[in-house]
Every structure is written in C-alpha cells, then in structure tokens.
C-alpha cells in the first residue's frame, strides 16, 4: 500500500493519499508539534514518549475515516502481509513512522505482519527477482579510523567476531573486508563480483561542506570522510541488493545544508534497498539487531520479513528496533536467497597462497590475514609519516616468531606499493646478491644509468649512494629482506649483525633516510638486533612492528579456516597447542583432518606444557613420520638443499609423489612462477631440525648429491648463476671436494670482480683457499688439475688489488709450485705466475727480485710465442720499467 503525505501545504493542511487517492487532511500545526517532539529524540530512550508519538502518527495516517485501520483489518482477515510504503516529504522525514502504534506498535503485530518502508523512488516498482538457491553473500566492512576524537575508536574486532559467530552455521558466506576503506571495498567487489548485502559499520556524521558522510579509513587507518557519491562510485559496478549503513543517523537528515541523508541518497543513486539508523545508535544495540537480521536473511526469508522479525526479536530492548529504517526504490522486498539452503557445520574459507611476481614472497591470496592495524602501521612507516615522537623512519622491521605471519604481512604491504619494483633477498644478505638483482632489474627495464653505476669501479657503498641519487628517484624500489635472522649472531643474550652484514646494510639505511619515502625497505626477523655503525644506532632508523600470536577476533577468524580442528573432539587441545601461531595451527589442522592416523594421546602427553618451538618440531616430526619411513627419510635428505631447487634435484632419493606429498603436508614449499619450472624447498623453519636427523655418512653422501645437481645446473646455465655457483662451492667444501670448490670459486670470483665486489670475492675465495692443504696441492699436481693453481693465483691477485702484496706473493708462490709440477718450467702458465710475482715484488720495491721473475717470464714467452707476441711485449715492458726504477733507486 502506497501512502503519501502531500508535500504541499494548503490552508495549513496537508493531504494524505492512499494509492494516490486523497483520503483525508491533517493539520500542519499538529505535524509541526509532532516534528518538534520527534526531533528532541526523547522517544529513543523513553518508551512512553515513543508510544505517544506512535499513537499521534497513527492518527495522522488513519484520519477520521479510519483508512489505515480498515487496511489492517482486511489484511488480518486474509492473513496477508501489509506493506506500508511511505512517501514522506523531505521536511517530515524526521518523523519516526516506525513507531506507529494503535494498541500495539504496528511493527510488532503478528496478524497481520506489517512492514513500514520509506519509499525514495518508484524506479523498480515492477521489477521481478527470483531468489537463487545458494548461500547468502555478505560483505562486512567495519570502519574505525584511529584518529577519531573522543575515544570513539570502535572495537570493530568485537563486532566482526560477534557477527561472524552468529552466522557461522548458517548458509551465509561472510567476507570480512580487512581495511575499512573504499579501495578495500572496490577490491572485494572485483574479487567476489556479487554480494547480496554490503554491511558498512562505523561512525557517520554530517560535514559542514560535504553533507552526510561516513567515517571510513584511509590506507593508514586515518579518518577519511566518504560521501554518498564516493560510496556509490565504489559500488556502482557490482551493486548489492541491500546496503546496510550501520552508522549513527544514516537514515535521518539534518537540514543544515538541505542535503538528503546518506541512506536516501544511496537509494536515489541506484541501490534497491538501504537500511540505516534514524538517530545515534549504541554499538551493542546495532550489533544485536544485525545478528538477527542475517539469521533471517540466511533462512531465505524476504527482506521485509527479515527486518520485521529482527525488530520483533528486539522488542524487549526498546532502544534499537524503532531506529532502524528501511529505504527502498520500490523493488520487491523478497528473499535474497531461496529458502531451505543446507545448514553448514562450519563456515570455512579456503587457504590459498600466491607468490608475488619475480620473488619467493608468499602471501595469502584467499584466507584470513587480519592484522589490520599492523598493515596500517606498516603503510604509515613506509610512506614516511612521522611517528608519535615526530620521527619518520627509513624502513620497517617486522618481528615475531616463526610461522606467525611476518612474510604474509610483508606481502600484504608490498601489494600496497605496486608502483615500486621489488628486490627480495632471502636469508643471508650479500652485496653480490643485491647488485645482481638490481642488474637484472635494470637490464629488464633498460635503465642504462643504473647499469653504468653497477659496472663502475666504485665500492659497494658508493654504488648504493649513486643509485639512490640518480636511479631510484625515477625507479622507486621496495627492498625486502626476508628471514633476516640468518644474518644475526647471538652475543650475550642479544643479537648482533654477523660479519660482513653492516657494510651492506648501513649504506642502504643511510641512503634510505634521504630517499624521502620513494625507496623503501622491509625486513622480517625473528629477533630484534643491535645495529650500530660509526657509533650511530641504525636500528632506530627502522620503524618496528612486533607480531604476536593471533588473539581474540583475529584468532577466531583464523580458526574459522581450520575446519577439522573445529569439528574435532580434541578442539580445545588443538587450539591450545596452536598457541595462536597461524603456521602451527595449519599443521595441527592436518593432524585433525586425519586423526585416526595419529596417536593423539601421545601427542597430548608429549606437548603438554611445552613451548611453541618444541610443539612445532614435534608436530612436523610426527607428520613426516606418520607418512612412513620412506617419506621421513626423503624429507630429511631433501633438507640438504638450503635454497629452492627444481624437482629433479630430489630424483636420486625420492620420486615426485613424495615431493608433492610434502607440499600437501606444507612441510615443503612449492613456487611456480609463470614461465618457470616449479621449485621446491623444505620449509625453512623445520629444515635444520630435519637435517640434524641425518647421520654423518649420509650427510656426506647427500652433499655430494647436491653438488652433482648444482654442477649439472651450472653446465646448462646460459650465464653464470650466482646462487648455483655459491651452492656448488658450499656442498663441495662440506663434502671435502676442495678441488671442485676451487673450480667454481674461480668462476664466482671473476663474476664478483666484474661487480667490483673485490672484498666479497676475496672472502669467498679465501674460504675455499683455507681448505687447500699441501695434500690438496699434491693431489692437484698428480691429477694435473689446474683449478687449484688458478684459484690460488686469483686469490693472490685479489690481495694485490686490495694492497696486501705480501699475502699476494704467498698465494702466487703456491700457484707457481703446482703449475711447475703440472706444466713444466717452459709453459706459458708458469710465465704468467712469474710475471705476477715480478709485479708483486716491484710493488714492494724489491726490484732485484722483480727483475729476476720478469726475466724468467720473458724467456718463456719469447721461446713459446716469439718476440712480437703481446704477452712477450708486456713482460718486456714491465722488465724495462723495473730496470729503470732500479737505476733511479
């Protein structure tokens, strides 16, 4: 039934029309007085006042002819529901028609059931919609800007938690939007396309200039005033059938700027049905009514009936039910979903990970991440906003125990900075790695300036400074150092930088400070650390986020993904063992999924009162063990690989089925970037523990296997791969295959020299040279292996470049000894060694010795190549210069 109150006042009277036919008149003074009483809002807290207003409103609609009463009687006799579509002029919209009361409030009537709907337009009067047989799709957005005045920051987690709990057994797919901002809503709509209901909860108000506004959040959690048109822009491509604006007075206008109120404007823009509150409403009242509403929506009841039943369920609590207002474009208010959808045991969300482009950064693509405040804090730090003390930070460190979700949080933050190129370093931070990754990036982007700086004869720190000055302002970079704890060494109960880390990290931190937020750094680490350089505390330059175990609403949301745990009789024990650690909970979920396979009593006994690390180790261990000896041995052996490798690396000791089983059990990680072969690795948090179970002989054997794998990789690499070379050297050294280590360290050294990383080159080659005993040299001689001599010679050259000539001579002599034995005393290689020795002695000023070596070299080159060969000429020149110096000296 369409009831209209005429907007026009004639003779101090307005006409009331039923289905556009004049029924009766009401006195304008009576309306004005009622309006004044309503505006004061006493009816909200005082049921008597509400009843009085309701009775007056009834009289206004009913008139002396009893039109409304006869409609109600007719409906009561037929049992039909009565829809009162009220068309109220703007000036009277503050009147609380939801309170209309005869003997009882009409909205509490059971026979007939009466709905009061505020009509905004007639746009969809004839539209037909059939409810679909599927679950209800709800997008829930809680907005709680952290800089609201008067301690008004909402406990949105509590509200999310309550609503989530209330619908978890119903056919309701509740998607919780984690950011509370418009962009987040847009993204949720792109990912999910259609929502039946979008529920936005938070504060709303009226802005002097903007009119009605909803207080949403910016990406850093700050207040963002959202107008109806802004919200409409975000929703327009994927309109929900119902928009619930759960904020104060979204369903009521003040008439300061004569702007229509929020809910009204949203219907006018194009949303079919909008729910709003007629006055300020309490959190608890709003939440309780909302819970009822979704219960009825989920049952497949009509929109009108759901609203009505929700009001009735709240009848004993006077406060919220009359405040709820239903605005419509006259679309049919039928059910959102078909009745009789199956009840769920649990609402679950499937975990799905994705890998960020060109990295091993794994983030949750689908599933709960939570940590809204942490994400906002991270964005604030990375954008260079000042903290409470007025300091802007150069980078961000995310701390917390293993499996707590540090990488997931970092991934979420990285996703927020899509304009930045990502450079990821996992584990050990090395200048070479960093420069090579930058080189690849510059190559790909054809950043010639960047390539020029990388090739220049500059030290690492100067290269970094130059890049920050000339390249990064145009090409913003996000550096992400994951698992940074691998760079730390414990010292007196604290952690310090391991050797060689400060020279890499400090130039970056110094340069970041003046990059004005264009270049960013994220570090994830299990432990805090001391970072001092030249007496300056560099750790303070980093903003810090400490991740704790999931708690309260976050934990509840995480738990919602753990179907098997929640349906288990051992639920409490599992959740206790999980310590709120998301990764640990995911492993426990695997056990809960197939409880019969495990000895749960033993598990309980073993883990009782144990700490998180112990439980993690124990759980992963039994997961591996329960899969059988073959799998258990497989994962132990696979732990030989410190870095991700292709599946073929595991072929000699296990098949693909074992590997995939490991991935299924989340004991292995798998990354499949498009256009690349999949790579695998044992989860870093359990790798060392698994590797420690392998006996010494088998470890040796496995290192050799790994060495063979990397040798095969190196043989097929089109250009030198730093990682393959490093790993080959590592496995060669630990399996005591020193000569092979020499071979690859020569290649790696030359690679590092090209990057002007002489110290890194020296350090690496020295680590191999330390293992070159006389026995190795003898072996090289008998096997005629020139690699050992070449490495020693290169090491000598590296020392010489760095000005340590005496050390250089020591290595040149060792190299010479091998070459003399392998090639004889007339070989050009021997001549090169003599020349190098000559050059070293010349540097030391020992010209006599220098001349002696140059002459030896010259004799060999002249004999082998003749006088005109460039080598002969060079040595001759060296000799002449030295002779002249000797004469001067």
């Amino acid at each position: 039934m369409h009831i209209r109150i005429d907007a026009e006042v004639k003779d101090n009277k307005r006409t009331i029309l039923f289905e556009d036919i004049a029924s009766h008149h009401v006195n304008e003074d009576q309306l004005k007085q009622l309006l004044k009483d309503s505006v004061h809002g006493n009816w909200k807290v005082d049921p008597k006042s509400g009843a009085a207003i309701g009775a007056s409103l009834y009289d206004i609609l009913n008139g002396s002819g009893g039109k409304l009463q006869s409609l109600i009687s007719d409906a009561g006799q037929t049992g039909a529901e009565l829809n009162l579509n009220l068309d109220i002029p703007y000036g009277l919209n503050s009147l609380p028609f939801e309170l209309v009361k005869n003997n009882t409030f009409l909205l509490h009537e059971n026979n007939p059931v009466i709905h009061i709907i505020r009509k905004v337009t007639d746009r969809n009067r004839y539209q037909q919609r059939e409810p679909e047989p599927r679950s209800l799709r709800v997008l829930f957005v809680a907005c709680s800007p952290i800089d609201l005045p008067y301690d008004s920051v909402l406990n949105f987690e509590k509200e999310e938690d309550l609503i989530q709990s209330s619908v978890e057994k119903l056919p309701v797919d509740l998607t919780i939007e984690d950011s509370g901002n418009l962009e987040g809503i847009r993204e949720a709509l792109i990912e999910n396309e259609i929502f039946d209901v979008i529920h936005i909860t938070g504060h709303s108000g009226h802005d002097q200039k903007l009119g009605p506004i909803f207080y949403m959040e910016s990406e850093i959690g700050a207040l963002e005033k959202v107008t109806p048109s802004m919200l409409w822009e975000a929703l327009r491509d994927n309109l929900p059938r119902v928009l619930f604006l759960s904020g104060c007075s979204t369903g009521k206008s003040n008439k300061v700027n004569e702007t229509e109120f929020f809910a009204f404007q949203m219907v006018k823009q194009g949303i079919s049905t909008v729910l709003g509150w007629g006055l300020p409403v309490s959190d608890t009242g709003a939440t309780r009514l909302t819970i009822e509403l979704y219960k009825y929506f989920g049952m497949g009841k009509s929109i009108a009936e759901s609203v009505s039943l929700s009001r009735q369920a709240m009848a004993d609590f006077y406060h919220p039910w009359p405040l709820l207002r239903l605005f419509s474009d006259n679309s049919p208010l039928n059910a959102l979903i078909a009745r009789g959808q199956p009840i769920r045991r649990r609402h679950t969300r499937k975990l799905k990970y994705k890998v960020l482009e060109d990295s091993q950064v794994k983030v949750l693509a689908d599933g709960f991440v939570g940590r809204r405040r942490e994400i906002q804090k991270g964005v604030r730090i990375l954008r260079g906003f000042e903290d409470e003390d007025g300091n802007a930070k150069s980078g961000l460190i995310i701390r917390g125990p293993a499996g707590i979700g540090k990488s997931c949080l970092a991934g979420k933050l990285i996703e927020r900075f899509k304009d930045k190129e990502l450079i990821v370093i996992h584990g050990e931070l090395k200048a070479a790695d960093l420069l090579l990754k930058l080189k690849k990036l510059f190559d790909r982007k054809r950043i010639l300036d960047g390539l020029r700086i990388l090739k220049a004869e500059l030290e690492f720190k100067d290269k970094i400074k130059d890049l920050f000055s000339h390249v990064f302002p145009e090409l913003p970079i996000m550096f992400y150092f994951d698992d940074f704890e691998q760079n730390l060494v414990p010292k007196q109960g604290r952690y310090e930088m391991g050797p060689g880390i400060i020279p890499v990290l400090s130039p970056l931190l110094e340069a970041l400070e003046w990059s004005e937020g264009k270049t960013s750094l994220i570090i994830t680490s299990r432990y805090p650390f001391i970072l001092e350089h030249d007496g300056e505390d560099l750790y303070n330059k980093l903003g810090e986020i400490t991740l704790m175990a999931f708690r309260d609403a976050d934990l509840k949301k995480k738990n919602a993904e753990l179907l098997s745990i929640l349906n288990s009789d051992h639920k409490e024990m599992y959740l206790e063992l999980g310590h709120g650690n998301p990764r640990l909970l995911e492993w426990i979920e695997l056990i809960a999924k197939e409880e019969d396979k495990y000895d749960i009593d033993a598990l309980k006994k073993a883990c009782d009162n144990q700490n998180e690390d112990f439980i993690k180790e124990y759980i992963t261990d039994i997961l591996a063990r329960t899969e059988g000896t073959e799998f258990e041995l497989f994962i132990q052996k696979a732990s030989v690989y410190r870095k991700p490798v292709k599946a073929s690396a595991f072929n000699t000791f296990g098949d693909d089925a074992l590997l995939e089983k490991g991935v299924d059990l989340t004991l292995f990680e798998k990354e499949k970037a498009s256009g690349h072969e999949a790579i695998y690795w044992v989860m870093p948090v359990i790798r060392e523990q698994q590797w420690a179970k392998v006996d010494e002989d088998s470890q040796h054997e496995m290192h050799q296997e790994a060495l063979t794998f990397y040798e095969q990789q190196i043989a097929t690499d089109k250009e030198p791969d730093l990682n393959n070379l490093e790993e080959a050297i590592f496995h060669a050294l630990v399996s005591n295959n020193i000569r092979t280590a020499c071979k690859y360290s020569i290649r790696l050294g030359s690679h590092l020299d090209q990057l002007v990383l002489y110290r890194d080159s020296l350090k690496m080659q020295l680590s191999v040279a330390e293992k070159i005993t006389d026995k190795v040299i003898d072996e090289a001689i008998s096997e005629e292996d020139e690699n050992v001599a070449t490495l020693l010679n290169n090491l000598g050259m590296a020392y010489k470049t760095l000005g340590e000539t005496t050390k250089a001579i020591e290595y040149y002599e060792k190299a010479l000894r091998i070459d003399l034995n392998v090639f004889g005393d007339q070989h050009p290689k021997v001549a090169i060694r003599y020349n190098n020795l000559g050059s070293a002695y010349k540097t030391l000023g020992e010209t006599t010795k220098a001349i002696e070596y140059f002459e030896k070299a010259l004799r060999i080159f002249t004999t082998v190549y003749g006088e005109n060969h460039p080598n002969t000429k060079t040595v001759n020149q060296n000799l002449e210069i030295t002779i002249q110096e000797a004469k001067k000296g």
Partner: protein
Amino acid sequence: MKNKTYLDEFIISCLEENDDQSEQTNEKFIGWESLITILVYQGFLILLPELKEWLKLGAVAIVLKRKGLEKKLIEYAEKKELDFPQAEKAAACVSKRLDEETLKNIVEALDK
C-alpha cells in the same frame, strides 16, 4: 569569511573540553564535532546581525548574553533537526565561551 582560522581554533577549543562526551552517552555517536562546527559556522552566521549589536553592549552585558545565545542555538538546532540531546550540549558548550574578545573575533571572522 575572512578569518577561517579563528573559527576553527574556536571549534577545537570546544572539542578539547568535551572529551568525555561519548563516555556519558554510551552512544556510537561521532556527530559532536559536526554539531559544534554547524553551530559555529551556520548558527552564528544566522545570528550575525544580532551578535554585532551585542558587541556594542560591552564586556559585562556580553557575558550575560550567554544563556540567550544557548537558547537561540538550541532553537536553530531544533529547526535544522540536529541530533538531540547532543545538540543541546553542543549549544551549551559553545555559548559558555562567549565573552567580549571571543565575540569580537567571531564576528570579524564571519563578517565578509
């Protein structure tokens, strides 16, 4: 409005003194700042001719006008259907700051 800054400062001073508003009402109410802003920018603007006259009365009389100002602002809030009872509190909060200096500044700021 020549001097917007003064009005903004005046609003901020009203806000600072009323930090306990939400605690008193147990409401999910964020309209307080909006209410003060509306009363200051719109309410005072409508009363501007009258406020100018008050300036001529001198310091003591201006202070005596506080209750009158509160009443007028409440009337304005009623007319514009602002949220009660917060609007009443906002009107009281704004009015009690009225003195000769404040009034002079407000009138200057609003007077084009």
